[in-house]
């Protein structure tokens, strides 16, 4: 890769990080045990993305999905290794710890429990689509699977959730 191409990629990656930093933080925050852990994962995600900048897709939307894919793999690695904590990341973690705790109501707790009871691959696609706001085709890119696989997985997850939560809808049973 020529120097100018590499420079262009660096500029694009920096812009990609800036544009998606808040969404990445929310994405990671929903998948770690304590908010403070999100600072570590976010920091490591940025570092890994820089290391792999040559693999960043040229298409902006695909680049965004690629970045969330990096974050997913970093989350997985968190459980296998201790993330590097520099002073800034530690301070960020302290800040996140000061935020008011998430206090879900009973219905939300039941929904979250139903999602957690799904097979992992189904639970994750539900989170990606309904919590993180990705379209199914985008979720497929984040997960590195075919769109048809993602659609099937998502439909099966919805069927299970509808069955599990049929009595939960505030206005009565969910329509089937």
């Amino acid at each position: 890769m020529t120097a100018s191409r590499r420079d262009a990629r660096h500029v694009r990656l920096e812009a990609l990080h800036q544009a998606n930093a808040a969404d990445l933080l929310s994405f990671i925050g929903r998948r770690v045990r304590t908010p403070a852990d999100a600072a570590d994962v976010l920091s490591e995600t940025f570092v890994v993305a820089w290391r792999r900048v040559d693999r960043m897709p040229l298409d902006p939307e695909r680049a965004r999905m690629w970045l969330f894919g990096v974050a997913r793999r970093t989350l997985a690695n968190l459980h296998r290794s201790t993330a590097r904590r520099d002073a800034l990341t530690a301070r960020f973690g302290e800040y996140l710890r000061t935020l008011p705790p998430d206090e879900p109501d009973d219905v939300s707790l039941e929904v979250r429990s139903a999602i957690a009871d799904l097979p992992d691959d189904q639970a994750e696609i539900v989170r990606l689509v309904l919590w993180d706001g990705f379209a199914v085709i985008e979720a497929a890119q984040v997960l590195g699977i075919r769109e048809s696989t993602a659609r099937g997985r998502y439909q099966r997850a919805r069927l299970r959730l509808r069955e599990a939560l049929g009595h939960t809808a505030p206005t009565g049973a969910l329509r089937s």
Partner: protein
Amino acid sequence: MDDLDELVRGAAPRGLGDETGAADRARFLAQTVAIESKGVRPGNRLRKVFAGFAIGIGIVGIGVTAATAGPSMLAWVGWAPEAAVQRSFSIVEGDTTCQVVARVLPEYRNVSDAEADRRTAEARVFLTQLDWDRAVESITIAEVDAAYAREQERRAPLIAEAESTGATPPPAVSRGLVAADLMAERIQSAFHDGGYLRQGTSLEMAAECAGTPDGGAR
């Protein structure tokens, strides 16, 4: 969106990135990693991201380059804008001329592709036909100063953290770029009031400010 979608969405843990201070720190962390990875200090450049209702707006402010209308403007922004507005401000640092350019893009999520295309086409007509000069003429210098003070206050904890941790502080912000942000916010508000900020459509904007030592036109 059906009742199951609504139920599950309503149960989502709150987004840490929705909290302003946390989002600022996340972007600051991104900048710090970028500096470490590239081995260079940041230039005179500021990037800001605003999140509106179901859309993302990226503001790219680039200082010290000449502000000119016409094709050269496309070079600095990197894409072909569908609308552009320019205004000069007489601020503490001197006269500055800011340009904001915008375009509408479809967002193929949560609505059908055809509906996203239809909404985008409607928004594009609105973008290209509205009188943006009128939309930004009401911005006052006092408003710029107040927004600048708020921006300084917002950045203060990040600068303090940079000093205490040895990280590179966030790039300086100028009144000119704050003025450009206000111009962009006016455009965003007009879109919101017109009912065009909705699922299926995104509005992308970029801003550039440059000093005009000879006073420039107002």
